[in-house]
């Protein structure tokens, strides 16, 4: 026995230090990470063998019944400069374990004295065949086992019999645990490759993902063949080259980090990125690179590794818990004439159909609607056709409609990521390329600019599913938006200017948006909204740095935002944008402050809604209107005189001119109606002369057709011309399914307003056919009155249970009390109606007695069924 001989530790220390320094020098000159890890593996192995001969057995193949086995990274010859060294002392039986214990201790002590991070395990061979669910790491490390020294027969038994039996028997459990560990690891890193300071080992797209792909392929092969597969045959030939290139890059980068930090630190921090780019780590043949360019190369490789490992994970049946499988089976029923869905992945029935340039867009729309992923075959097929698509890319209104549908679908962010990953997003919006994997060094940001954008879109969609208090408040705002697609589109482009050389990225983002909107041939009012949202996307955050309870702060902010609709959109955009900076960025402090600023501004806008136009219209607005209608002349001034300023802010120039034209035709027909269909609602505009019961008769006429009024606005000018707009949903699809009904509907409304039809009879007919349904949520009626906020009117805010005919009942009550509705702002939020009216009686504010009479009458009216 050699155990009592003096050790040669000093010599070994010198040898290890000298060889390690040589490996570092070689790496610094060649940049070859693969060579460095191989060289360190060989160095550690030579030391281990020498210690084996000194402390355990002079013969490398002795003693009998005991062997030294390399596991994990050491087993696969992947020892990075400061990696742990996993070894297994393998015994044939319990007796050997006791006999060799002192020698194992001496052997291990020597390695620790060399400051090597040894992770030893001692097992009897029978123990290796048992699967311990709490130590799946050991079972996984066996997949990389390699003989070092000792009894070859016992290692052969482990390798050829024990491990294949273990894997074949327990593959389901091993893969399940591996999946759990992987998901926990992904969650820790926010499920994205695109961190500004990524972890090269454990982050998504890191080296652990490469190992995961190899282990899954190995387990699948063993499960099928019952034995070890042929070396090098694990991955499909098409993947080997790109996968190998990505591995080489990551190996070099991790070696660089270890040498730089002199420890097992795998975080690619900004300073390290600068040095890696300057040294062209992983890309020695490249020309000079900026840190951003070098990071783009990193993300390209990490994205590939992440994509392949995720695909393997999802395609591996054992990786899926039973609930997941049931869910995927349900999803496979989504298959249709164009797509088949297998295990949550989409395949094209006819890949040759990709010659139709719209099929890729329909594919991603399908993904966005149903939360599916592309199969690798489909991904490859789409990538193949992109070059031909590039010569004549989709554009115009048709592309905008596809984009709208994708952005509005619940899984928009995942679909956009997939579009970006295959290169389709930058093909249709080339300006997005600037922020592809772009690192902007901001200490609070955690993700690249493109990923930040997708996370922000994801945050908005997640509002509807969230149970969190803050999310639910903001989800209510989202449901009220008239054009949520414009919010999503603005989010998609809001930071694109970060790739451009402007003092403020907002300028660049606006420039990008202009180009995109022109190509998409978007309507001018929609473009104006997008310009506003992108141009002001920092305003709400900036206002949070003011005293948000100061009326002047609120007034200034309201002046910038202009309309309640824009306020809601900007509020949501800010909420999603801050939340996408990093998971902790939206503190309860900020969320509360955004909400307080929102409600303060919303209330301010509501209370100042009856500020009227009296020759003081913004000159820019007037010039714009006059340019559009040069012949209007003084007619325009007299039409606008006395209308609320809010009217000009909420109506587009073309709408204002259309209303003016309708007003000029009142001498031909006293009731001018216009019916249009929007994305969510129908819109009915009425221009007529004011008279008692007008608003209530209009509301009643709509109710008699079963239409559900979700929003309304009523305005009047000094000449007594009113412009009323009603937004409603068609509950019985009367208008949608019967085009001829449009004219009959308009005629019926016209007849009610000109007293040719009996409204009471129509309403009674409707109510008789109406089934009584208990409301899902009970809303108590509340009436708030403010007689101070307006100089001319009394504000009544009625919050109550929404129901058919509600607006008719409320407005009839006002008319019965001889009150005129100067302005009505009607909104519906779920089952709650929120109606605000500015009322006058004989042209004056209401006196206290009339207010009380009206309040009592309204409460009585709304308390009856």
């Amino acid at each position, binding site marked *: 026995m050699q155990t009592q001989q003096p050790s040669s530790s000093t010599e070994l220390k010198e040898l290890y230090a000298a060889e390690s320094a040589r490996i570092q020098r070689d790496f610094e000159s060649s940049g070859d990470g693969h060579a460095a890890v191989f060289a360190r593996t060989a160095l550690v192995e030579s030391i281990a063998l020498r210690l084996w001969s000194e402390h355990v057995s002079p013969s490398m193949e002795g003693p009998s019944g005991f062997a030294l086995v390399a596991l994990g990274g050491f087993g696969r010859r992947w020892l990075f400069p400061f990696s742990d060294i996993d070894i297994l002392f393998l015994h044939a039986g319990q007796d050997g374990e006791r006999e060799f214990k002192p020698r194992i201790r001496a052997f291990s002590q020597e390695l620790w004295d060399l400051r090597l991070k040894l992770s030893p395990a001692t097992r009897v061979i029978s123990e290796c065949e048992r699967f311990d669910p709490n130590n799946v790491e050991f079972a996984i490390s066996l997949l990389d086992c390699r003989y070092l020294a000792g009894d070859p027969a016992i290692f052969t038994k482990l390798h050829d019999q024990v491990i294949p039996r273990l894997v074949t028997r327990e593959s389901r459990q091993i893969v399940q645990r591996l999946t759990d560990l992987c998901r926990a690891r992904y969650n820790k890193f926010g499920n994205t490759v695109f961190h500004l300071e990524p972890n090269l080992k454990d982050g998504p797209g890191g080296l652990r993902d490469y190992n995961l792909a190899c282990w899954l392929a190995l387990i699948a092969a063993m499960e099928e063949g019952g034995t070890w597969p042929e070396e090098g045959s694990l991955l499909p030939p098409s993947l080997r080259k790109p996968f190998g290139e990505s591995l080489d890059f990551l190996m070099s980068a991790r070696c660089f980090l270890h040498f730089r930090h002199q420890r097992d630190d795998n975080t690619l921090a900004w300073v390290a990125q600068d040095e890696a780019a300057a040294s062209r780590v992983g890309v020695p043949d490249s020309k000079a690179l900026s840190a951003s360019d070098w990071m783009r190369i990193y993300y390209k490789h990490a994205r590939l590794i992440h994509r392949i490992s995720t695909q393997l994970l999802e395609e591996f049946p054992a990786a899926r818990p039973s609930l997941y499988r049931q869910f995927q089976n349900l999803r496979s029923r989504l298959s249709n004439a164009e797509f088949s869905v297998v295990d949550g992945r989409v395949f094209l029935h006819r890949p040759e159909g990709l010659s139709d340039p719209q099929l890729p867009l329909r594919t991603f729309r399908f993904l966005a609607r149903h939360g599916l992923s592309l199969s690798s075959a489909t991904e490859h097929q789409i990538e193949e056709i992109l070059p031909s698509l590039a010569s004549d890319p989709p554009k115009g209104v048709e592309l905008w409609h596809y984009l709208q549908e994708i952005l509005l679908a619940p899984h928009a962010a995942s679909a956009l990521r997939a579009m970006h990953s295959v290169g389709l997003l930058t093909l249709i919006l080339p300006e997005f390329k600037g922020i592809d994997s772009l690192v902007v060094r901001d200490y609070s940001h955690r993700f690249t600019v493109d990923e930040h954008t997708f996370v922000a879109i994801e945050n908005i969609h997640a509002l509807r599913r969230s149970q969190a208090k803050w999310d639910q408040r903001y989800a209510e705002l989202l449901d009220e938006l008239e054009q949520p697609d414009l919010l999503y589109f603005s989010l998609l482009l809001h930071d694109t200017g970060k790739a451009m050389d402007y003092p403020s990225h907002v300028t660049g983002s606006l420039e990008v948006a202009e180009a995109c909107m022109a190509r998409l041939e978007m309507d001018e009012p929609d473009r104006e909204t997008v310009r506003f949202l992108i141009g002001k996307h920092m305003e709400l955050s900036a206002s*949070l*740095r*003011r*005293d*948000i*309870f100061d009326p002047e702060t609120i007034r200034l902010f309201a002046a910038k935002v202009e309309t309640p609709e824009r306020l809601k959109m900007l509020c949501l955009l800010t909420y999603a944008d801050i939340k996408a900076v990093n998971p902790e960025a939206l*503190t309860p*402090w*900020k969320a*509360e*402050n955004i*909400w*307080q600023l929102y*409600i*303060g501004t*919303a*209330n301010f806008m509501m209370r100042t809604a009856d500020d009227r136009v009296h020759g003081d219209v913004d000159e820019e607005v007037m010039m714009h209107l006059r340019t559009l209608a040069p012949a209007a002349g003084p007619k325009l001034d007299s039409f606008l005189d006395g209308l609320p300023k809010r009217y000009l802010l909420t109506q587009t120039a073309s709408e204002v001119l259309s209303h003016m034209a309708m007003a000029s035709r009142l001498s031909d027909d006293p009731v001018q109606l216009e019916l249009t269909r929007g994305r969510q609602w129908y819109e009915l505009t009425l221009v007529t002369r004011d008279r008692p019961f007008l608003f209530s008769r209009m509301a009643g006429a709509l109710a008699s057709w079963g239409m559900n009024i979700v929003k309304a606005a009523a305005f009047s000018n000094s000449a007594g011309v009113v412009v009323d707009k009603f937004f409603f949903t068609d509950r019985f699809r009367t208008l949608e399914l019967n085009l001829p009904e449009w004219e009959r509907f308009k005629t019926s409304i016209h007849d009610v307003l000109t007293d040719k039809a009996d409204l009471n009879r129509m309403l009674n007919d409707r109510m008789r056919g109406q089934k009584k349904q208990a409301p899902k949520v009970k809303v108590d009626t*509340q009436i*708030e009155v403010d007689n101070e906020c307006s100089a001319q009117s009394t504000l009544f*805010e009625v*919050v109550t249970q929404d129901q058919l005919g509600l607006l008719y009942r409320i407005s009839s009550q006002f008319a019965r009390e001889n009150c005129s509705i100067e302005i009505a702002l009607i909104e519906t*939020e779920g089952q*709650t109606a*929120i109606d605000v009216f500015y009322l006058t009686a004989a042209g004056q504010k209401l006196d206290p007695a009339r207010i009380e009479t009206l309040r009592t009458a309204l409460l009585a009216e709304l308390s009856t069924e």
Partner: protein
Amino acid sequence: MTKLEAVIQTSKLDAVKDALHEIGVEGMTVLEARGHGRQKGHTEYYRGREYTVDLIPKIKIELVLGDDLVEGAVQAIMNSARTGKIGDGKIFLSRIDDAIRIRNDERGDSAL
């Protein structure tokens, strides 16, 4: 050494930071805070719901200073954070026994 804690209006943070920087104070900890002193909150109604703000958003800054800088820092904060209205905030001073820089074991004033 003295620890200075100041509770100020959110809108005054930039001005206070600049003022402290001007007199040579380089580091500080900034915390998002809520609270009230004599300045009570208020209630806002929105859509029939009542939103009561009884704890007002504030910013709290914390600094540990060598004794020679304390008075200057107090003056800088007072001058830059004062509006003269209720809710301007408060400054608290307390003695600190020692400071240690974790990176290199430096102690006392040199660790600040």
